[in-house]
């Protein structure tokens, strides 16, 4: 008898038990898929800003779902309501689930009150990617910026999130910094909550 696999049929995706998130695929499978995401989107745009935006959009869709999934699975259906709480949730919980490690650092911007930075020496999505010189400062980390934005937005912390290469002294390769600039309303609310 063929086709008798482990996979069980469910009438509805909601009947299916939620995966515990322990299943793995090879990093290569993801890298090839991500490369294809970038290639496909390159065919759809005229300029680099547009490509960035489209990668961010793709990431946003992932972030929105990750928030829902992790609040349910890791946090007993609770989500963070305070700014530092949600930032550390992203920096540790989200990063660990998606990228297998806690992010290298989470810092507050020194010049602006509303800015925070999550930095990674080698962002997983950039592991195999060399950006051609003629693309300037373009960073495929825009996808990860989109994920962060998707989490924040859907948790009630609207923000502008962007990915940047930052040179490190004594290193050949720059690190990637995800810059988060919160909307004014978020900071007002934080101030009110004290």
């Amino acid at each position, binding site marked *: 008898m063929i086709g008798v696999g482990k996979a069980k049929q469910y009438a509805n995706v909601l009947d299916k038990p939620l995966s515990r998130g322990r299943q793995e695929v090879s990093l*290569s499978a993801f*890298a090839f898929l*991500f490369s294809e995401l*970038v290639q496909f989107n390159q065919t759809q745009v005229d300029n680099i800003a547009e490509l960035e935006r489209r990668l961010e959009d793709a990431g946003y869709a992932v972030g929105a779902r990750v928030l829902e999934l992790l609040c349910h699975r890791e946090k007993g259906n609770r989500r963070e309501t305070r700014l530092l709480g949600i930032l550390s949730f992203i920096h540790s919980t989200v990063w660990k689930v998606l990228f297998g490690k806690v992010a290298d650092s989470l810092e507050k911007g020194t010049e602006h009150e509303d800015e925070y930075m999550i930095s990674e020496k080698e962002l997983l999505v950039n592991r*195999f990617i*060399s*950006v*051609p010189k003629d693309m300037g400062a373009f960073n495929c980390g825009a996808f990860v910026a989109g994920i962060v934005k998707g989490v924040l937005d859907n948790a009630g912390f609207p923000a502008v999130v962007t990915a940047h290469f930052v040179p490190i002294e004594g290193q*050949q*390769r720059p690190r990637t910094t995800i810059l988060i600039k919160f909307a004014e309303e978020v900071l007002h609310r934080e101030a009110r909550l004290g």
Partner: protein
Amino acid sequence: MALVAIYSLFIINKSGGLIYYKDYGSAGRMDTNDSLRLASLWHSMHAISQQLSPTPGCTGIDLLQAHNFDLHCFQSLTGTKFFVVCETGAPNMEMLLKVIYELYTDFVLKNPFYEMEMPIRCELFDLNLAQVIQKDRVALLGR
């Protein structure tokens, strides 16, 4: 003489086009035209050798020995050729070629900005390759 065991590295696509050439300090450093011509010639010789073979199943030339250098060639099943020119008797060149093939699958083929069959311009490939070649030299030092 320095520790240089490897003189140059070539990668040729399946149609015989040179897509990567790196010189590690050989006396006969070639200009672009010469390297392209050499790549295409090697591609043909490789194929001719398969026709010359008295028994079926020949996959081409693996090693060419000259009196003052060796040339080791590896062709993947997909038709991409990697070859190194090195000092005579340099060991472990098959392993080195295999490692270079793996680097190619990581830092060239997974790069969304690399177009298949085209010349390789990938910073990460260069960096990782340089490390491997360096290591190889170190390994040779330790003999």
